[in-house]
């Protein structure tokens, strides 16, 4: 008999903490069932407490909070599991943030785990110690254990370190109390990626703090960057990937440069609009206009225009 996470309903993140026991069906009044119902309620109320910045320990003893390590680890940013609160229609929300707060209630806890994506370059492969190191795009080093299926890729990527071919690693990371990734506990996916990889560049843009441009330069809206990442990945499956850079005002420039031409779209992340301009020295043209980037047709036009830019030899 126990509590299990029985399903995450499609299209939302409504979880059902199910009282799993055959006996509960046959003997619904047994005392243990009441304990399980209380446990389910306590979990939901503890989550709700941290949502309100109240101590979860009014509902769950501090030494039991570590069990959240095994629950909600794969939640992504902005995802939430909804758990019913006792006696009504209200729900609590287990998010990355609330889960982290629950795990770090005890000062004794120095680290926690959750899903992590790392972009960077393989800087070390130690086959004797069965470990590797990644120099991330943010300049810190993250280590991990070599798993057999990734051994060749790691060795090849290390050989390519000087040619700057980056890798993307998805797995479970160990984070310190400040949220900094210390190491990879396990790796589920590893691949060599394009130096212009859209997700990698978006991660860099997300990390910019206000003042990034020698004291000026606004930070970029995270929701807007998520929208842009999805839009670009969907649009540029078979076209030259744009070079992305931030604007001083918190926008993003998508840019293609040729030997005598230049095309760019300056994107407003809040309004989903794009000011485009095309300079073509051969024809003497300089054209400008505005795109509504919630319109799929605009992206098709941008992709078509980008195909004039094959890159430099």
């Amino acid at each position: 008999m126990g509590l299990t996470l029985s399903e995450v309903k499609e299209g939302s993140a409504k979880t059902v903490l199910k009282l799993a026991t055959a006996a509960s069906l046959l003997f619904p009044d047994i005392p243990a069932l009441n304990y399980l119902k209380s446990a389910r309620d306590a979990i939901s109320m503890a989550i709700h407490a941290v949502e309100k910045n109240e101590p979860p320990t009014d509902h769950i003893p501090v030494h039991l909070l570590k069990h959240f390590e095994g629950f909600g680890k794969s939640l992504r940013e902005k995802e939430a599991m909804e758990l019913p609160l006792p006696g009504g229609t209200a729900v609590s929300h287990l998010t990355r943030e609330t889960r982290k707060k629950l795990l770090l209630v005890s000062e004794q806890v120095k680290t926690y785990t959750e899903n992590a994506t790392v972009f960077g370059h393989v800087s070390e492969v130690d086959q004797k110690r069965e470990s590797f190191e990644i120099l991330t795009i943010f300049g810190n080093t993250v280590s991990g254990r070599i798993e057999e299926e990734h051994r060749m890729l790691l060795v090849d990527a290390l050989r390519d370190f000087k040619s700057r071919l980056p890798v993307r690693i998805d797995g479970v990371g160990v984070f310190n109390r400040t949220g900094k990734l210390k190491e990879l506990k396990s790796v589920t996916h590893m691949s060599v990626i394009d130096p212009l990889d859209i997700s990698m560049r978006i991660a860099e843009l997300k990390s910019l703090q206000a003042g990034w441009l020698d004291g000026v330069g606004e930070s970029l809206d995270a929701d807007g960057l998520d929208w842009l990442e999805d839009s670009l990945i969907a649009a540029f499956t078979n076209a030259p990937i744009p070079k992305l850079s931030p604007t001083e005002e918190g926008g993003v420039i998508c840019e293609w440069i040729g030997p005598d031409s230049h095309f760019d779209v300056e994107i407003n992340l809040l309004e989903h609009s794009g000011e485009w301009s095309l300079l073509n020295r051969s024809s003497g043209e300089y054209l400008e206009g505005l795109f509504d980037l919630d319109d799929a047709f605009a992206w098709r036009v941008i992709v078509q225009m980008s195909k004039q830019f094959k890159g430099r030899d």
Partner: protein
Amino acid sequence: MTPETMLLRQIHPMYFSKDGEILRGAFKPTNSDNGFLSVYNGDMIEPAPAVHHYREQGRKTGGVAGITVEECSRHQLPCIDDGVPFPEHATIDFSKKSPSEMKKAYKELTIYANNRGLLAQV
């Protein structure tokens, strides 16, 4: 300065693409620049020492690109050998241009710089 003088522009790391191209943001004056783009006078300092000098001031650069005075003059961009706030300082003047003219001009400079390639890299 002469028409052949190379004007050295420090490229902020965010305006340097991962495949080695210089992006247009590198040549756009910031709002507080009031249309005056800071460069080093290449007659007075070489690209590598210019990088060193810039970093000594605690500023970020991924390398140095070059534009000649003559290339600027093709797009009606006056170049001023002002020597302020340090002797090797010079300025490209975008201040008389409308926003649209300014954008066209810094796109032009971006093409020149990329065709020439980086003159010094961090």
